[in-house]
């Protein structure tokens, strides 16, 4: 009976031992873990102290007495674990340094890019300003050229007008002196006509036959032009002003009557009598007074 009991106990102990990993296997497992750490560290000195301490403890592990094995295993495993974490930490430290450098690189790159953008923007603004200046200069030059041309043309026109006016005056004077009845001239570049006092019977508003014929010829011309005209009578300053006003108007109306009879529409003909109010020359001499007695046929 006792033998059977002992046999059962021995078998149970053997079974328990067979199920638990052997001491050698546990040590080998720790050895393998430490070897992996060493391999990962390579030739570097990452976690060197931790690996050394773990290796020393593992070296003494196989000789450990059976009753101390649990504690010894726990200490060795803690040392191996510490070495594993220490090596991983060393790798992370290196990674942190690399990340710091990467951040610096990003900032540097961004600064370079900002500087480049600022440089390009400045260049763009400079070119814009340059273009604007050129544009303004061109516009100013064009305007100056236009103004110069206009001024030149104006001066030319004024010179021509002055020359024409001078010629007209000369012609009028010559006509008056010669006793020409009808003279043409230009007022502001438009044709105008002047009828001398010799066209009328002295002191009356009755046209001489020659003058009437000339006016009929002129009427055909005015009718063809289709413009409006103002017929203005003038006298010298001899006699009363009332009489002069009446005579100047009556003479103008006499001219208007010839034009209307020749077919010029009445609506295109205006009549005025100025008397002696608008003399052409001084009324002091005979010639001057002869010039002042006249009918002006002016474009409206």
């Amino acid at each position: 009976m006792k033998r059977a009991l002992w046999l059962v106990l021995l078998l149970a102990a053997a079974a328990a031992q067979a199920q638990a990993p052997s001491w050698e296997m546990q040590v080998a497992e720790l050895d393998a873990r430490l070897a992996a750490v060493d391999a990962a560290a390579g030739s570097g000195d990452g976690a060197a102290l931790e690996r050394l301490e773990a290796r020393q403890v593992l070296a003494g592990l196989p000789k450990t007495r059976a009753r101390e094995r649990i504690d010894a295993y726990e200490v060795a495993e803690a040392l191996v674990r510490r070495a594993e974490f220490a090596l991983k930490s060393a790798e992370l430290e290196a990674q942190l340094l690399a990340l710091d450098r990467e951040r610096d690189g990003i900032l540097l790159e961004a600064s370079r890019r900002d500087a480049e953008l600022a440089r390009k923007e400045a260049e763009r603004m400079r070119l814009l300003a340059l273009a604007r200046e050129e544009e303004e200069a061109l516009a100013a030059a064009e305007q100056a050229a236009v103004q110069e041309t206009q001024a030149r043309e104006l001066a030319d026109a004024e010179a021509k007008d002055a020359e024409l006016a001078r010629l007209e005056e000369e012609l009028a004077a010559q006509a008056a002196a010669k006793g020409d009845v009808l003279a043409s001239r230009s007022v502001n570049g438009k044709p105008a006509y002047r009828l001398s006092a010799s066209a009328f019977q002295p002191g009356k508003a009755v046209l001489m036959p020659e003058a009437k014929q000339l006016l009929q010829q002129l009427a055909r011309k005015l009718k063809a032009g289709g413009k409006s005209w103002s017929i203005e009578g003038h006298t010298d300053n001899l006699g009363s002003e009332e009489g002069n006003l009446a005579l100047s108007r009556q003479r103008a109306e006499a001219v208007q009557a010839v034009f209307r009879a020749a077919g010029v529409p009445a609506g295109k003909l205006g009549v005025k009598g100025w008397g002696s109010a608008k003399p052409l020359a001084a009324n002091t001499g005979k010639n001057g007074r002869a010039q002042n007695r006249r009918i002006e046929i002016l474009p409206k």
Partner: protein
Amino acid sequence: MSTPFLRFLLVACLAAGTAAAQSPPSELPQAEQAVTAARQANAGTLAPDALARAEAVLAAANAAAGRGKLKEAERQALRARRLAEAATAEAHYLQLKERVETKVSENAALRRELLVTGGGRP
């Protein structure tokens, strides 16, 4: 050698042995320092199991010392110290890992903000 001298030597050796046996284990303060260091490394949050094991073993070491089992206390203190050191290493590793992950995200965001969208400085 005379007998009185041998007696004296025997008594002195016994006294010295007794004194040595009664002195507190030298590993105990180191173990306590290691556990404190682990707590300061935030192992309570980052490696709670490892720290709890170290603290339990330290408590066992202190208990053994209290019972006068100094050799046992010494052995447990050594275990506690090594376990605490492992807990500290684990906590340190996890802190670094978190810092690396954060920095990777920050760099990616920075790159996106500065180099892709051309935003202003952080």
